């Protein structure tokens, strides 16, 4: 099967899966859930497999087009598609145990379980659509569709708080993303007036090739609209208000999807526009805006993490902080800054997926997210405690876990580019996060075992995906694997529109080992 056809299969699979799982709800309370789970597992397995094959194809220097060049996969898109595939598979498997627990406890009924998998697969479809879109207007359609596909997942439990979160999520994101449409239309209209073939002016690949001929004034205005629009969906300060509510009220595997991949989808589109705007106007305005919003997001995220007593809200504010760091990397620019931002996208996605799955285990064991009532997790559920601990230390930016590598690269890039004071401020803010997370370790992971919580871990089906995520967190922290490093370098070249930089994504000790090998 050729790569173009595979790309179409990738986008179509979750849509078909979604339709079939919705239809399964008509099969009755016994057969329905069974069929829905089976279809869901088959769909997420196919998606993950196709993602790996397509990533390998792109890694071999082949950009993939399909559907009359409307679908497109370059190394930057391949990283996002890979993340959707991996996180979709692992959270999809985790969902099986989590939803069965909800079903057994009477929180949901069989029909609701089928609808969960229907919306879950629909959500994957909308994100894959966004990641593979080459047409900028269809990129916008994809981002808007992600809100619509996931709104019922946020309000899944139908409780007061979850409905409130769903309402804020839909209103803030649809309004925010509407600004993105204005930016998109401005770019399209400008390109239609300037470029030779009007039929192709909505294609990103065409726009980036002709970006230098676009009017700088229009592009600056368009970028501001785009930043507000897609920045809202990415959870950047000050448009982040929906994020803590939606992340905390959604079922935990959905929170993992929102935090691990959805915000990356919005960032991906924002960076696609940053590349065009930088080529049209120079880096001045886009990079300045990214630096300002990135720093503010890190600051607000760090400070609000410190005052949280709700585990999932704490993780949600950490997402705002990490998105801020990623945007800061793109704002710093240069091969090291951009590579650091892309590696941080990968590392944050995997770590936060692990942590939100862990928060699901906490909910299943303690029936609360209030950290004042969660004590002695390691004594109650050792595997969950250990995996959550690994995730928390990764989030702290401690070696040998993955986020240390990308944060180290980011700070190095900032210092190298002359943003010394900004890096000092960021490091101080990261110290606040470190302190807040250590408090979580001391207060909730460790400590005496509460008497009213039955000891024993959650089921294997929840722990296996978490083990895989934990392994990735450590693996990417010890040494960035060669294929990942090459993909990050190639994606960096897509963002910067230069030739791929050599060995840019690596842990500090990898650089030392390479130097020692060369001296021998």
């Amino acid at each position, binding site marked *: 099967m050729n790569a173009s056809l595979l790309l179409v299969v990738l986008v179509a699979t979750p849509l078909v899966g979604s339709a079939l799982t919705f239809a399964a709800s008509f099969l009755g309370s016994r057969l329905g859930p069974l069929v829905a789970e089976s279809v869901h597992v088959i769909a997420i397995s196919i998606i993950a497999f196709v993602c790996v094959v397509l990533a390998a194809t792109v890694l071999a220097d082949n950009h993939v087009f399909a559907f009359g060049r409307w679908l497109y996969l370059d190394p930057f898109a391949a990283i996002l598609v890979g993340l959707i595939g991996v996180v979709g598979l692992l959270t999809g498997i985790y969902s099986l145990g989590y939803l069965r627990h909800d079903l057994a406890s009477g929180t949901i009924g069989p029909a609701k379980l089928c609808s969960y998998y229907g919306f879950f697969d629909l959500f994957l479809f909308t994100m894959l659509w966004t990641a593979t879109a080459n047409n900028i207007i269809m990129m916008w*359609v994809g981002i808007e569709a992600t809100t*619509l596909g996931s709104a019922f997942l946020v309000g899944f439990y139908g409780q007061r708080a979850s409905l409130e979160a769903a309402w804020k999520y839909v209103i803030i994101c649809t309004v925010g993303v509407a600004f993105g449409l*204005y930016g998109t239309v401005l770019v399209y209209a400008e390109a239609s007036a300037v470029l030779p073939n009007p039929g192709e002016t909505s294609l990103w690949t065409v726009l980036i090739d002709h970006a230098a001929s676009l009017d700088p004034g229009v592009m600056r205005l368009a970028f501001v609209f785009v930043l507000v629009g897609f920045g809202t969906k990415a959870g950047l300060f000050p448009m982040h208000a929906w994020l803590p509510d939606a992340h905390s009220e959604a079922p935990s595997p959905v929170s993992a999807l929102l935090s691990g991949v959805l915000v990356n989808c919005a960032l991906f589109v924002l960076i696609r526009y940053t590349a065009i705007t930088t080529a049209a106007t120079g880096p001045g305005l886009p990079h300045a805006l990214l630096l300002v919003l990135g720093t503010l997001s890190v600051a607000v995220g760090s400070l609000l993490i410190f005052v949280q007593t709700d585990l999932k809200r704490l993780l949600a504010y950490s997402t705002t902080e990490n998105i801020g760091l990623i945007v800061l990397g793109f704002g710093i620019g240069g091969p090291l800054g951009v590579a650091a931002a892309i590696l941080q996208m990968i590392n944050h996605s995997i770590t936060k997926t692990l942590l939100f799955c862990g928060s699901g285990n906490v909910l299943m064991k303690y029936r609360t997210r209030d950290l004042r009532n969660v004590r002695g997790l390691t004594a109650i559920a050792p595997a969950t405690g250990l995996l959550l601990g690994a995730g928390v230390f990764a989030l702290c930016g401690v070696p040998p876990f993955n986020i240390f590598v990308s944060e180290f690269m980011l700070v190095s890039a900032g210092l190298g580019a002359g943003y010394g004071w900004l890096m000092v401020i960021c490091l101080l803010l990261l110290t606040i996060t470190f302190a807040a997370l250590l408090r979580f370790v001391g207060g909730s992971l460790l400590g005496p075992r509460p008497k009213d919580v039955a000891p024993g871990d959650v089921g294997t089906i929840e722990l296996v995906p978490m083990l895989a995520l934990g392994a990735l967190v450590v693996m990417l922290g010890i040494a960035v694997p060669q294929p990942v490093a090459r993909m990050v370098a190639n994606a960096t070249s897509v963002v910067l529109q230069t030739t791929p930089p050599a060995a840019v994504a690596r842990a500090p000790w990898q650089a030392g080992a390479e130097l020692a090998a060369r001296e021998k």
Partner: protein
Amino acid sequence: MTGLQLVNGLASLLIVTSLLVIEAHGVRRSALYYALQSFVLVLIFVALAATVDAPRLFLWAAIAFVTKVVLVPFIMYRTLGGVEDPALAPHRLAFAWSILLGAAVVAICFVVVSTVHLPVAAALKPALAISLAHFFLGLACIVMQRNLLKQVFGYCLMENGSHLTLALMANRAPELVEIGVVTDAIFAVIIMAVIGTMIRSRLQTLDVRQLTSLRG
């Protein structure tokens, strides 16, 4: 009257109809005024199609008629028509402020649009300014209205504004693009209406200021 003048004139009618949507008593009246406004939008598409030689806009007009003049108002009228919150009745003073706000927004948008160099829509700058103003009026409706169903109409107004911008500036885009944008808009309205109804039945209120369980 030339075609361009007709487009610009019809565009100004959108502002009048949007004020009616915002200030109407009850969801049913707002839905009817929204249908009227969408019909004006359809007329603009037809006038624009004939004036700037963009035959695709005839199809856009047909799609907009089916979806925005018939389908969305029908959904709003039927599903939300009986959903009221007596505590949220509008008062007369608000209408006067709405008119002032509308005038201010239109003036600002005229200034902004006049400063941007846009060869595609040079002769249609008044309509463009009004489409932008319409978008921000919808935004103001969302921000200022306490009734969450009025917020849904605010989104509808924003969407009509951006749809007109799209027709003025991107009328040569492929049909699939238009279908994608309209599909998103319809589903957004349906999802907002469903969640709004769920909130009404669960929380017994339509007042967004009562949605306060998530803080911090």
